């Protein structure tokens, strides 16, 4: 080659060197009174911050809006925007005394008129069931309202304390129309909305005028953190890494599978939150062989909840033996109804039902092997648990064939009644979840068990609409819950602990987390360390 060619080579080489970017150490530092949180995974993709219309209430909702009533982790109720309340003995009238001196972020005052405007807004929305029992709202005085009921509702306080009952500013709400919740969201809460991008992030700015914190919080005034960036990260590993590398300060709701990893990081502190849901296995009661109660029961007894907790989750969380979370009084049922692992009895039941062990350990009846569809959705957590269940079912000679679907497809399959067993979960802290998942009106989906039982229906209606007081409601639901478990349409598996992980060099989080979730009360108590 000639000299000129060498020159070309030299030129090309130096160009490449110039292209090879010398990576300088870079870090996305966060200013002192700012903090970045990762949203709980289940909150991802919420389309709107309009509390009246949303079907997914998120941490952002809780920080922008205040509610009349707060619920604590032990399911007790505490005043917030409502200072006190009382109901008539027949449950037909509820009177609420409102807190004075509360203003919305846009400067509008909060008073009885607000409530009278707000409650009717629910009519026709997905959330109308929350106040469906309220006939009308009467203004007693500027800071007193009275709800006149259509029928007694023992669940009213629970509903008023739910995340959907954050009170929006009437003025802003009416002005924004359909875009309310997307571009603007105005409440009385400790944080104001700066901007919000679905699936990406929400930036909140401290409400400097806030001085009406609830009694769940130690700090009744404005929050300590000035700016709060809430990020939505789908990939669990990414959240973990962000916390580990200082990209975020807190991950709200750490997946249990990763808990030990989180715990192993130097500056990371974890904190247990109250549990808020159950993993369970619905059994399609309309599909062979599960029309047979014995087979259902055997299947249920095959599930080894303790093993899942101790081995798969390394002791984090609780085994679930009832369908409701353990903090609900309705879950305190007669232990004989609890579903517990009993391999011997399970095998015996299957023998009785005519399913005999075949040569390869799989049971058979009339020449047909006991092979059933075991379906779940695509998230890691579900797949992991399903694989373990599959292995456990094998022990009773049941061959579960796993099918993994995305959430929408699997619902479609449920509706078409194509399924047999499934692994599902819910997050709710009220016994009415029994109604949602087991009501004969909702067969297919959400009643994946396809359960339709006359006695069950009777008990369900009694519990749901026949209870006038909280105590009565609890008692009725207990009976219903016991009956449900005796029929084995569902197998409770696991009550996960929810855990918070944060960078302890950056944040100081209050010792005790109050409220059913990690919410405003805890966040305004959280401090950024210097």
């Amino acid at each position, binding site marked *: 080659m000639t000299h000129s060619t060498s020159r070309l080579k030299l030129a090309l080489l130096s160009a490449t060197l110039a292209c090879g970017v010398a990576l300088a150490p870079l870090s996305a530092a966060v200013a002192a009174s700012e903090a970045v949180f990762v949203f709980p995974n289940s909150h991802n993709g919420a389309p709107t911050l309009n509390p009246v219309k949303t079907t997914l209430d998120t941490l952002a909702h809780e920080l922008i809006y205040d509610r009349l009533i707060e619920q604590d982790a032990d399911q007790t109720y505490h005043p917030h925007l409502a200072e006190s309340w009382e109901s008539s003995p027949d449950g037909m009238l509820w009177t609420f005394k409102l807190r004075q001196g509360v203003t919305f972020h846009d400067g509008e005052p909060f008073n009885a008129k607000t409530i009278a405007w707000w409650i009717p807004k629910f009519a026709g929305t997905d959330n109308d069931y929350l106040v469906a029992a309220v006939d009308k709202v009467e203004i007693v005085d500027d800071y007193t309202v009275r709800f006149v009921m259509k029928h007694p509702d023992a669940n009213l306080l629970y509903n008023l304390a739910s995340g959907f009952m954050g009170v929006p500013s009437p003025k802003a709400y009416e002005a924004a129309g359909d875009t309310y919740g997307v571009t603007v969201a105005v409440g009385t809460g400790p944080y104001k909305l700066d901007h919000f991008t679905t699936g990406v992030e929400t930036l909140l700015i401290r409400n400097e005028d806030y001085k009406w914190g609830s009694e769940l919080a130690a700090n009744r005034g404005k929050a300590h953190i000035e700016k709060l960036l809430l990020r939505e990260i789908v990939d669990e590993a990414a959240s973990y890494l962000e916390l580990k590398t200082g990209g975020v300060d807190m991950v709200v709701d750490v997946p249990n599978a*990763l808990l030990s*990893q989180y715990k192993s990081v130097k500056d990371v502190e974890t904190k247990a939150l109250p549990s808020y849901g159950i993993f369970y296995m619905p059994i399609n009661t309309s599909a062979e062989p599960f029309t047979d109660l014995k087979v259902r029961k055997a299947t249920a007894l095959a599930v080894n909840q303790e093993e899942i907790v101790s081995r*798969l989750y390394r002791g984090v969380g609780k085994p679930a033996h009832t369908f409701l979370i353990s903090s609900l009084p309705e879950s305190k049922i007669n232990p004989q109804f609890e579903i517990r692992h009993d391999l011997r009895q399970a095998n015996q039941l299957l023998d009785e039902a005519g399913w005999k062990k075949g040569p390869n350990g799989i049971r058979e009846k009339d020449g047909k092997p006991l092979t059933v569809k075991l379906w779940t959705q695509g998230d890691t957590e579900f*797949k992991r648990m399903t694989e*373990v269940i599959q*292995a456990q079912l094998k022990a009773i000679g049941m061959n579960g064939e796993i099918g993994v679907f995305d959430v929408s497809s699997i619902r479609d399959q449920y509706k078409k009644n194509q399924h047999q067993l499934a692994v599902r979960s819910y997050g709710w802290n009220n016994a009415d979840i029994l109604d949602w998942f087991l009501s004969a009106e909702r067969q297919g989906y959400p009643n994946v068990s396809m359960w339709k039982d006359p006695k069950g229906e009777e008990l369900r209606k009694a519990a749901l609409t026949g209870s006038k007081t909280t105590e009565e409601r609890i008692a009725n639901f207990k009976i219903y819950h016991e009956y449900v478990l005796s029929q084995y349409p569902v197998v409770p598996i696991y009550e996960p602990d929810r855990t918070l992980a944060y960078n302890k060099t950056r944040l100081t989080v209050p010792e005790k987390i109050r409220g059913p979730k990690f919410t405003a009360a805890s966040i305004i108590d959280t401090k950024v360390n210097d």
Partner: protein
Amino acid sequence: MSLSLKTQGAATLRLLGKPFGGIGGAICGAGLGLFIFVALFAPLLAPYAYDAQDLARIGLPPSAENWFGTDEFGRDVLSRVIYGARISLSVGLTAVALSASAGILIGALCGYFGGRFDRITMAAIDLTWCFPEILLALVLVAILGPGLNSTVIAIAVAYLAQFTRLTRTQVRALKGETFVEVSRCLGAGHAHILLRHLLPNALAPVIVVAMLTTGDAILLEATLGFFGMGAQPPTPSWGAMMSSGSAQLFNAPWVVIIPGLFVALSVIFINVYGDAILAALDVKNRIRRA
């Protein structure tokens, strides 16, 4: 001696280039052979059952007992990788075989007959090029439901256009070759010309491209697996293994890194070996034309 040793092989083929040949090709051929052997005899080679859980031995690092460690259910990663070779390679091969057969058939007919039939068919097939392979495959799997069969079909559809186009181009180019005209001149019918002259000559590059595409198909399967579509648990495919392991990347990185390495290795083997074959074909071409 002419300075321009021009080979008239299809331009697409030449674009792929052949930086490796000789020894590299041989090594990779052997590697590929080894992978296929492992896939065929997985049950004999795997030290443990691929689905044998041992919840007491979760996430153990590589050791004498478990050469590649254990995964989040205490299953032996080595055994799963061995069985995974079976799934990943067979999904890749089946999908590409399916895709190539359909593509060759359609492409040959379109290329040979041309005209309106050709234009409409090709327009329909080209539509798949409007969507990135991954998205196309994801949507198709969503339509077809989960499972290996739908994965295979989705991957096959994703590469259909490529094979159809390639075959069509080849057939169209060959149609202009003198030997086809000779055959017509002798009184040969369409079937004779297509089967005896066009396809045998068009096929060689298509087969090489099919081989190279198998690498891409394995990657695509892995990606689908990463999104939880594809092989259903506990069936191990390399993609599915990486997917379920990704959350463990930082306390049990072997669960992710090892299957990924095997994907990369198999794709490299396939590519280099394919290139070597290409080079060999090219040489033959050159002799013919020189």
